[in-house]
Every structure is written in structure tokens, then in C-alpha cells.
């Protein structure tokens, strides 16, 4: 294998050999990174600080005791409540209408940390031997949702016509309106978010029975699948795929791991059939994944083959694939004759047919935003491949109008004056409803509108009533996971700001005024098949409620008509460009705009924080004459939008990926409070009900420059190693060849034939270890370890770059948020980052993701340079970081080849000292020190968890069991790519993995002896696509 060098690149500037970038990279921090921004003169500042410190020393705190502290025990302690310990409760997080089962950890009554529920029949099923004791994975959205509970921008009291009111006022209003509501059944409407809650369904049946009309709107909807399967099978269905049984997986323009409601389960199933050391398919077998998509998604980044294709071309592509498999006429689209696409389809069809011939199984999955026809074609191909009942099951769905139809009907009724009462349950339709409907002005024509929402947002502003909604961790509720299992939402805390849940509001409207618990409990006890309420609440689900697969028979599909652009080539002229709407990794659909953890988590692939953008491919950008970070004016269907463009390698030609969820004007102090303080751009402004998933015919004109705040060039591992990295010349050849491999990849075939392990060591020996004393020769005295030896393995082959580890780490370790301007200055504080390397051509690159946290080196370079002993080696091999000793020289970061140390340039926690921020402080994990300004910090393998578990085991007079201690990142990882354990135990999971042939140390040639090792990524390419 070739060494790193230009094979891998992180940004287009780097690929082009940009001199400025090389210069920028030489600095540890960009210019002025160590300057405070808010004070004009740094010197004056220090002079003042020095003086005040001296005075403070004389005046006092030095010779006093610590400030007086109080101990405030509960007057009556509930059973099981032990002060200073955590308790975990099962609950569920509903996003986009489907529930993700959770385990929420609570510390003395405060929910603090969120993990997946490993006992749930859907998300917990199939956790493998390396995952003993681990939680099931979570999405970053679910993980970060705990921060919303303590958001002080949440609304605290009802509003009527913009004026403050009380809950009693609202109840009185409902009481007076009750008769009117009953009498005017048809003029009463409910607009709900998509929800699978059986209790809401129950209340809905009662209300619609009384004539109330029910509407549903969700900006990122799964309607197309239901409609498509109805086309294919004659009844509304949803597909449930079993990736653990699939030899070949084909994904048509979809993000099946992060965006898909079943993504956490799909990711695990995918990992199970992925191997390569023993998979669910059998020894030595490994699945092969193809992804055809317009924009890079996690699915495309880990697929063995990815074809960038505009979203609108997926339909002719699917027809062609169908034709290639079951025979029939190929559509006559021009792009299908382009060499690359033609080869791809031929190789894919051959692969699928071969798998079938050899008794294997395949599955084709169509993405959320693809039209019903594509879903129907995917069903047809699956049928031809014999996937039904093996790799795909179909579950019955309710037949209802699509979300677009539903909200369009509501708006036309509102405009027609047929709506007298409108209850909006959650959601933010004024912000995210299709632009052509103009929901906001239609809302003005409704006499009585009620918006139930956690924040006073864009919609609350326009309704006659706003009612605070309880956060999902504060109220009872329920939802179904994708397999239909009835999952219970259990409150962990009383509503901090009052607030009612959706079911409680519906109950008020219906006139019974029951509590959430009564409603859910009555429903579970009557409909749950004799389920025990207490057991269901404890486990988090009602047993045996998963849906059984529906019997289906394929119908003949109607002919598909293709538009001129769908029949054309893959290159498009300005004016006929395609716009594809994406969810945002920072805000999902805009609802997390005020969640600072998510806003500051770098996007999966662009690595941009606190923003949204239009993604343009490099070739398209060149055609349009725009560069990276330039403003563009986008014109779609007569609507215009100013947005910043991000030139994204691998974005399909002619396709512009428009990220939703920015430009909130009433999100809160983090996400924007006015048109001047927005984060990103409101891309909903161009999204119309006619083209809700993607639109064609877009025109782009270039504008000024813009500056993104991103982490792409930060903490580059390669920077310390080779200063000439970014401009290789002929003369630099020697240096380049001695570059160690940072990410290792190996083809499945070569791996089976023995590639890896000793072969790699031998080659490294030859390449780097010219020293005759051999690779183990060390300048330092080697340490010996008698007890535990903590170690970690990160599998590059199963990292889907979902950011769950980053958010979980932030939640566990009290990692501060620094804000957009500070990220520009390299001051982001994440202890674990995900490095994303491109490989290949900018138009169709491959991606490798590499999570990097502190490697806990045995020969740690950081320890050798600390002048005050603030980072010390522990007897168990951890690089302990002692915050109270650190004086902030930053030598350790300078000397860290992995760039994993983070410095507190400012007091990021200053705001918590303000009494007004008391509530926000509650999200802090009391088990971890909150760091102050001027100290260095870094990953410690969650040492608080290690210590607590060690103490617990010894209290119980037993040894620790492998898998008992888990790190936060490990718990959150949906694929189990991160494994932590004791290397001193020969049969521990981490020992087994580190002994694997794929295992290698990052920058091992530096002889740092890191305790974290990586497993090389094994790819399983199709030989025909070579």
C-alpha cells in the first residue's frame, strides 16, 4: 500500500497545493488565536489582572477556609435514591414520527446523559460479543436532546396575542370555548408533528369521531416510501430491512444510518454482516454496499462503491437497474450511456444476480426523499432478487394523506375561512412549511389558534395562544420504534418551566383533562395485550408489540414518465440545476437550532459548525464560476435565496445540496433571535410543496465571499510530522515515502490472503526503523504495569461518522461550547474528533473517517515536557490530567503528535457563575471537574467511570468483568466501533481486537506506544469495478 501523502487529502485547498494553507498549517493556532477578542489590549489586561491578583492575595482568600458549603438532604428520601449516585430509566425520543428507545441516566433527579436502550427488542437485538455491558447506540440528536431540558430560552408561561398569561387563563379559555369547539367539529383542526404515539392515535380517534379534522406535517417525511409500496403492493407499507442477512446492499439516495428512524438498528445489522473476522453471513464473508447518491451521506462514505448521481436521476437509474436484472427495456436516458454509469449498472446487476445464483441475499433500499416510483422499483427489484421475507419485510401502515397533501388542504381551508380553531401540536410550520403555501399569513385568518411548543418560536408569534410544551424528559408519552414496538416515554423530572405534553393538551381539548400518566397507562393496560404497566415502564416497552410482516404480492407497476432533465446527461447547465433538500447535522430540520452542542458539532463531512449552506460539486462550481465560501443567489421556481456555497467533493454534478434548518429568527439566544442574529440561512424559503424533496430548474449567480467556521484544517495529525506535506515536490520524495500511514485500508481479498499484522510491521520496520537497534529501542525508561492496562480499539471499518461519540463525550465530560468565532481560532474543545480524509478525485472521492481521541501513550510526549507535573502517567497506563496543577504553558499540546489536547483560552463556563443561569448549570456531570480558564484538558478514557466501577467491584469483593466499564463514546457508538477494556486480561474483547491482524497504532513509528489502536478498514470492492 502506498503511504499517506497525496493519496489522502482533507480539503480541496490541500489537494491543489495551496501555499497559504501550508503556511496556515505551520502555526499551531491560526493568527491571533491566543488573543482575547473582547479586550483591546492584552498587555493592559494582564497588568490589571496581575495587580488585582496581588491585592486578592493580600486581602484574603488565601488565609480563609473554602467558602461555607451546605448539605441539603431531602426531607424524605425516596427508595433507591442514594445521594451522589446515578439511576437509569428507560424512555424514548421521538424524531420525525418514530421513537428511538433510550436509557436516560439521572443524577439526583437531573437527567444528564442519554444512551440507547440495549434491552429493547428493536435497538438492543443482535449486540455481539464485543458489546457486553454496553448501551445500544444513539443518534447525536437524541444524545444532545438532554441539553434542551435545561435551555433557559424555553418558554415559561403561556402567551395570548403576544401577552403573558397563565395556565389557568388558558384552561379558562378552553373551558369557555369548549361548547363552541363541540358545536363546530368540522371547523376545529389539529395540526400535529408526525407521530407514532399510540396514545395520540387513541385521542385522535376520539376527536375525529367528534368531527375534528386531523392534519400532519413533518418537513422531513417518510411518506414517499408508504406511497411507493402502495404502488407496488396495493397497500400502504413500510420496509424493514435486515442488513445482517444481506450479502449485497444497494442504497438509492438515502442516509440509512443517521437520518433513517431505524438507523441505529440498521447500523448494527450492517456491522454484523460486515465482519471481516466472522460475520453473520458466515466465516470469511463480508457484505458489499453500493450507494448511489447526490450528496455524501454516512452511507456513501462507508459504501464499497459510491456513484455520485443527481437525485432526479435515481429514477431512471432504478429503472435501468431493474431492466438489467429482470430483463426489459432500458430507459433511453443519456447519462445511462456515460461510461462510468454504464459500467456501474452492469457490475451492480451482475453482482446482484451472482449473489442470488449462489444462494445469497441482497437488498435494495430507496432513500426517504426519492419519489414513490423509486420505492416501487426498489420493491420490484427486491422481489426479483428474492429478498422478501429474508432481507426485507413489509409492515402495514395506516393509509393517510401525505404530509404535503395534509398541510396543503389545511392551508386552503384556512384561507377559505373554514377553520375556526387550530391546535398546532409541536412543530414550527410558519418556519418550515412549504414556501408556496405561506402558512404564516393563512394563520392570520384563523380566529383561534393554539401553538404548543417548547420555545416561543416563529409559529408561536403568529398564533393567538402559545402554550409551553414539556420536554420529552419531563412528561409521559409513548411512541413506536420502526418495527412497531410500543415504547414508553417516562418522565425523569417535573417540568422545569411548567408546560404540558401533547397528549395532555389533546385531553384538555377533548374535555377530560386527564394527566399524561393516566392517559398512557390506561392505553397500555387496555390495548397492550395484558401488559404489566410497571414492567412496561421499567423495561421501556410493551412486550410483544412488534408488528408482524405483512403478506404482500407484487402488482405491475405503471409506466414512469421521465422529464427532459432525467433523460439528459449528468452535466447540467445553469438554469436547469437540481436542488436537493437535506437534513442538517447541526439542527436536523431546524428544531435543534438552539442546541449549542449540536450547533458546534462539526458536520459529518463538511466539518462546518454553526452554519448551513448550499453544497456544490467541484465541477459544477467551476462551471458556475463560484469558489468555496462564496455567497450565491439561488433561484428556484421563482423564489430566490441568498446562501453561502460550500464546494463539496463528491457532490453529484449539477446537483446543489441545500441544507435545511438554518436561519431561525426566533430560536433563542443560541440559534438566533432576530433576522440579524440567525445561524445560517433559511433555506425553507425556496422549498415548495410541488418539489418538497428536490427541485429542478435552479439558477445560480455568484456573489460576495463568506467565511465558514469549520474544523477541517484543525488538529491535522500530519502537520507535526512533515512540514512540506502540503506541497510535495519531486525533491520531497524521500520525506513522503517515510510518512506513516495514518489511515490504513485493505481490500477484503488481500485481507483474507493474510495482509496486515506482521506484514505491516515488517514494512514499517523497513520504511522507518533504519536504526539498527530496532523498532523497540527507546530513549526513555519503559514502564511496567502490574494491574489493569486500559486500552481502546477503534474500528475504522465500522465508523459511520455519525458524531454520536462527540456529543456523548460532550455530555459526559462537561465539554464547553465556544461559539462560531472561537472555532475559527482553533479553540473548539471536543475531546474526540472525527478526522475525515478524502481519497481519489475531487469529483468522486472516497472518504475514510477516523475518530481521534487521546491515545494514552505509554511513552507520552506530553508528559515529558510538562514543567509542573500536571500530566502524569498512572499505574494503569492512563495519561492523567491534573487540572489543578496545570499552569497553561501549552507545551504538552505542542508536543502531542495526535493533536488531542484542548486548551481553555477563555473561561467558557463564566456564564454559569451568573445566578440567572442556574438552570443551565444543571446539565453538568458532577463526576467530572469543570475546567477553568488557562488549563489544558483532554480525553481520559472516562476515568470517572473507571474509578467508580473499580470501587464498586472491590466493594463487592470481586474482580472487574470485561465489558463492565464502558466509555461514553463506546456506549453511544451505533456500530460498536469503539471497544474499551483491560489489556491485562488476555481474553478481553480489547485484547482480542488489538491482537487482530487489522490492528495498528496511529503514528506507531514515533514509539509513543499508544494504548488506543485502530483496526484498518477492510473494503470489499467489486472486482468488476476495480
Amino acid at each position, binding site marked *: 500500500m502506498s503511504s499517506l501523502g497525496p493519496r489522502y487529502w482533507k480539503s480541496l485547498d490541500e489537494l491543489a497545493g495551496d501555499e497559504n494553507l501550508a503556511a496556515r498549517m505551520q502555526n499551531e493556532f491560526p493568527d491571533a488565536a491566543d488573543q482575547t477578542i473582547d479586550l483591546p489590549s492584552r498587555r493592559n489586561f494582564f497588568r490589571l489582572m496581575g495587580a488585582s491578583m496581588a491585592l486578592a492575595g493580600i486581602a484574603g482568600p*488565601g*488565609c480563609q*477556609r*473554602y467558602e*461555607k*458549603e*451546605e*448539605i*441539603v*438532604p*431531602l*426531607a*424524605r*428520601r425516596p427508595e433507591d435514591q*442514594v*445521594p*451522589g*449516585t446515578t439511576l437509569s430509566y428507560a424512555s424514548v425520543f421521538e424524531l420525525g414520527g418514530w421513537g428511538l428507545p433510550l436509557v436516560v441516566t439521572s443524577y439526583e433527579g437531573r437527567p444528564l446523559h442519554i444512551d440507547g436502550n440495549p434491552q429493547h427488542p428493536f435497538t438492543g437485538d443482535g449486540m455481539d460479543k464485543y458489546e457486553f455491558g454496553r448501551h445500544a447506540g444513539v443518534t447525536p440528536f437524541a444524545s444532545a436532546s438532554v441539553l434542551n431540558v435545561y435551555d433557559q430560552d424555553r418558554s415559561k408561561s403561556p402567551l395570548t396575542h403576544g401577552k403573558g398569561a397563565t395556565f389557568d387563563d388558558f384552561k379558562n379559555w378552553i373551558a369557555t370555548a369548549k361548547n363552541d369547539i363541540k358545536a363546530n367539529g368540522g371547523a376545529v383542526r389539529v395540526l400535529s408533528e408526525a407521530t407514532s404515539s399510540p396514545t395520540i392515535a387513541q385521542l385522535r380517534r376520539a376527536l375525529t369521531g367528534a368531527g375534528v379534522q386531523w392534519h400532519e406535517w413533518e418537513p422531513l417525511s417518510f411518506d414517499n416510501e408508504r406511497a411507493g409500496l402502495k404502488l407496488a403492493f396495493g397497500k400502504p407499507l413500510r420496509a424493514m430491512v435486515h442488513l445482517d442477512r444481506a450479502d449485497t446492499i444497494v442504497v438509492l439516495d438515502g442516509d440509512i444510518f443517521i437520518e433513517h428512524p431505524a438507523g441505529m438498528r440498521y447500523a448494527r445489522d450492517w456491522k454484523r454482516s460486515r465482519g471481516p473476522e466472522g460475520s453473520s453471513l458466515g466465516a470469511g464473508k463480508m457484505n458489499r454496499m453500493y450507494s448511489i447518491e447526490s450528496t455524501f451521506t454516512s452511507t456513501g462514505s462507508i459504501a464499497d462503491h459510491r456513484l455520485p448521481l443527481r437525485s432526479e436521476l435515481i429514477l431512471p437509474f432504478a429503472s435501468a437497474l431493474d431492466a438489467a436484472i429482470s430483463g426489459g427495456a432500458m430507459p433511453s436516458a443519456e447519462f445511462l450511456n456515460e461510461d462510468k454509469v454504464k459500467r456501474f449498472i452492469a457490475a451492480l446487476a451482475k453482482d446482484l444476480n451472482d449473489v442470488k445464483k449462489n444462494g445469497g441475499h441482497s437488498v435494495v433500499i430507496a432513500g426517504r426523499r426519492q419519489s414513490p416510483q423509486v420505492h416501487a422499483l426498489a420493491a420490484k427489484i427486491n422481489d426479483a432478487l428474492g429478498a422478501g421475507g429474508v432481507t426485507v419485510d413489509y409492515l402495514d401502515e395506516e393509509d393517510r394523506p401525505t404530509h404535503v397533501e395534509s398541510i396543503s388542504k389545511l392551508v386552503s381551508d384556512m384561507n377559505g375561512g373554514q377553520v375556526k380553531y387550530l391546535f398546532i401540536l409541536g412543530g414550527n410550520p410558519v418556519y418550515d412549511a412549504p414556501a408556496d403555501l405561506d402558512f404564516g399569513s393563512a394563520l392570520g385568518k384563523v380566529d383561534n389558534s393554539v401553538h404548543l411548543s417548547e420555545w416561543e418560536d416563529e409559529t408561536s408569534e403568529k398564533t393567538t395562544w402559545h402554550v409551553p410544551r414539556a420536554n420529552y424528559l419531563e412528561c409521559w408519552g409513548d411512541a413506536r420504534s420502526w418495527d412497531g414496538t410500543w415504547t414508553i416515554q417516562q418522565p425523569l423530572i417535573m417540568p422545569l418551566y411548567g408546560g404540558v405534553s401533547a397528549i395532555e393538551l389533546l385531553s384538555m381539548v377533548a374535555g377530560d383533562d386527564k394527566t399524561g400518566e393516566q392517559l398512557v397507562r390506561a392505553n397500555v393496560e387496555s390495548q397492550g395485550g395484558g401488559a404489566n404497566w410497571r414492567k412496561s415502564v421499567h423495561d421501556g416497552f410493551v412486550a410483544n408489540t412488534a408488528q408482524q410482516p405483512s403478506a404482500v404480492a407484487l402488482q405491475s407497476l405503471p409506466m414512469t414518465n421521465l422529464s427532459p432533465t432525467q433523460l439528459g446527461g449528468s452535466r447540467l447547465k445553469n438554469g436547469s440545476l437540481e436542488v436537493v433538500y437535506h437534513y442538517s447535522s447541526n439542527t436536523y430540520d431546524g428544531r435543534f437550532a438552539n442546541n449549542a452542542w449540536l450547533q458546534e458539532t462539526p458536520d459529518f463531512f463538511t466539518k462546518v459548525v454553526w452554519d448551513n449552506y448550499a453544497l456544490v460539486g467541484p465541477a459544477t462550481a467551476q462551471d458556475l464560476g463560484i469558489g468555496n465560501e462564496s455567497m450565491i443567489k439561488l433561484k428556484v421556481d421563482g423564489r430566490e435565496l441568498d446562501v453561502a456555497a460550500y464546494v463539496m467533493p463528491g457532490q453529484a454534478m449539477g446537483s446543489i445540496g441545500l441544507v435545511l434548518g438554518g436561519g431561525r429568527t426566533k430560536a433563542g439566544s443560541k440559534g438566533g433571535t432576530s433576522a440579524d442574529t440567525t445561524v445560517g440561512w433559511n433555506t425553507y424559503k425556496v422549498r415548495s410543496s410541488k418539489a418538497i424533496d428536490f427541485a429542478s430548474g435552479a439558477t445560480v449567480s455568484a456573489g460576495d465571499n463568506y467565511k465558514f467556521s469549520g474544523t477541517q484544517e484543525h488538529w491535522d495529525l500530519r502537520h507535526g510530522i512533515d512540514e512540506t506535506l502540503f506541497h510535495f515536490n519531486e525533491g520531497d520524495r524521500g520525506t513522503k515515502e517515510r510518512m506513516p500511514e495514518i489511515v490504513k485500508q485493505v481490500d477484503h481479498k488481500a485481507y483474507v490472503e493474510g495482509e496486515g499484522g506482521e506484514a505491516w510491521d515488517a514494512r514499517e520496520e523497513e520504511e522507518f526503523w533504519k536504526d539498527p537497534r530496532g523498532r523497540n529501542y527507546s530513549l526513555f525508561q519503559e514502564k511496567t504495569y502490574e*494491574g489493569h492496562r486500559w486500552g481502546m480499539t477503534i474500528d475504522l471499518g465500522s465508523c459511520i461518522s455519525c458524531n454520536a461519540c462527540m456529543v456523548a463525550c460532550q455530555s459526559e465530560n462537561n465539554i464547553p461550547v465556544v461559539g462560531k468565532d472561537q472555532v475559527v481560532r482553533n479553540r473548539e474543545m471536543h475531546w474526540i474528533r472525527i478526522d475525515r480524509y478524502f481519497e481519489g478525485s475531487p469529483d468522486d472521492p472516497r472518504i475514510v473517517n477516523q475518530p481521534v481521541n487521546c491515545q494514552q501513550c505509554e511513552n507520552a510526549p506530553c508528559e515529558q515536557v510538562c514543567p509542573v507535573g500536571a500530566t*502524569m502517567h*498512572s*499505574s*494503569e497506563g*492512563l495519561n*492523567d*490530567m*491534573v*487540572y*489543578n496543577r496545570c499552569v497553561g504553558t501549552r507545551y504538552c499540546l505542542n508536543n502531542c503528535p495526535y493533536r488531542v489536547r484542548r486548551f481553555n483560552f477563555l473561561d467558557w463556563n463564566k456564564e454559569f457563575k451568573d445566578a440567572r443561569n442556574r438552570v443551565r448549570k444543571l446539565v453538568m456531570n458532577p*463526576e*467530572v*471537574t469543570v475546567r477553568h480558564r488557562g488549563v489544558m484538558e483532554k480525553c*481520559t478514557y472516562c*476515568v*470517572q467511570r*473507571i*474509578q*467508580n466501577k473499580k*470501587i464498586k467491584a*472491590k*466493594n463487592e*469483593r470481586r474482580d472487574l468483568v470485561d465489558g463492565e466499564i464502558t466509555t461514553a463514546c463506546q456506549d453511544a457508538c451505533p456500530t460498536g466501533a469503539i471497544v474499551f477494556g483491560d489489556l491485562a486480561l488476555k481474553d478481553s474483547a480489547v485484547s482480542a481486537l488489538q491482537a487482530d491482524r487489522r490492528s495498528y497504532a496511529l503514528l506507531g513509528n514515533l514509539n509513543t506506544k499508544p494504548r488506543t489502536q485502530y483496526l484498518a478498514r477492510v473494503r470489499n470492492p467489486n472486482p468488476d469495478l476495480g
Partner: protein
Amino acid sequence: MSRLIFPQWTETFKKWVSLLAIGGPVYLTVLIWSCAQNPNTLRIGYQPDQPVPYSHALHAGELGLDCRYCHTTVDRAAKAAIPPAATCMNCHSQVWKESDKLLPIRQAFYENQPVHWVRVHDLPDYVYFNHSAHTTRGLGCETCHGRIDQMVQVYQHAPLTMQWCIDCHRNPEPNLRKPENLTVMGYQPAPGEGAEVKKQYKINPPTDCSTCHR
């Protein structure tokens, strides 16, 4: 003329006098200062007033209540736990039920509002001490808290400095006792008891930074 010139030796004398004049007060100040700042001076004996004049000497000493009757979580959690008012009311709903001194307890219990006790043993916030890790390893309450059974009002007995912690972590044997003697006050370990306990429970106290600092 020459009589007006001081002899040469006064030059040295002048230096010493001025050094003493300037250095002496500085030296004394630093000396007093550092004595005053010494944790032994500063913290041992710290005895704040509590909202309820609870006497350990009466309850733990005279009446012989076991420490764990109130501090229930001391051998299974990090915090020993100050008891809820409900624990007091187990007895005080029967005895001294009219006492004025117990008014805050009754109020707390019936109004379900906590009593605000003042912390006596206060470690810096970056120190993570775990009671259970010590009580289950043969360290008696008395070792750190002193003769609680004789304290009418609790005060701090030990300096609770890092030096003090580490001294014991390096050589725990003199302080170890059999776990059944955990709460015995005035206990004298039998010769060799510490070594035996250390061996039996594999006691090997770590001195890593992350043992206490996270």
C-alpha cells in the same frame, strides 16, 4: 578630618543592619503567614454551628447508635449521606416531640423541605473522595473523623490535605482494622491486624493522580 570618616568595618556592618531592618519584618511576616495558612492551623478544629444542635456525643456516644443508622450509604456510595429528616423522626416522633430545638426537623419533615446543614469536612471540588472505597477496606470512621462519640458539636479532626491522604495511601497498614470494627470508637487494632486485613482484601491503595482528580 580623618576622625569624621567611619572606619572600613562599618561598611559591612551597614549591610547587615539594613538587611536585618528590611529582611526581618519580611521574614517574620512570611513566617506568621505560613503558619496561619498551614492546614493544621486553618482547618483542624473547624466547628461551624448547625441549624439543629445535634449532639453526636449523645447519640453515638451515650446512646450507642451505630454510625450507619443515619449515614446509611457510607459503605456503598461515595457520599456517607446526611440523613433525611425522616430518619430523625423515626425516634423523635416519640421522644422529645415537643422540643423547640427539634422544630426545624419537624418543619422539614411535615413541610417536606430540606434542613440546610453546614458542611464540616469540605474537600476542594476537584477532589473526588469515595467513602465506600475506604469503609469496605478496613478503614474506621474514627481514623479520619476522630472521636465523634465525644463531640457535642462536630469539628474537623484531621487536616484532610493531600499530604495526609497520600501518607496513608503509601502506608495504610497502621490504620487498617477488620471491617466489623468499622464504627467502633477508640479501637486499638491488634498487632498485625493491619497487615492481615491488607492481605485479605488485597488492599493496594493507588497514588495515581486520577485516583482522586478527574
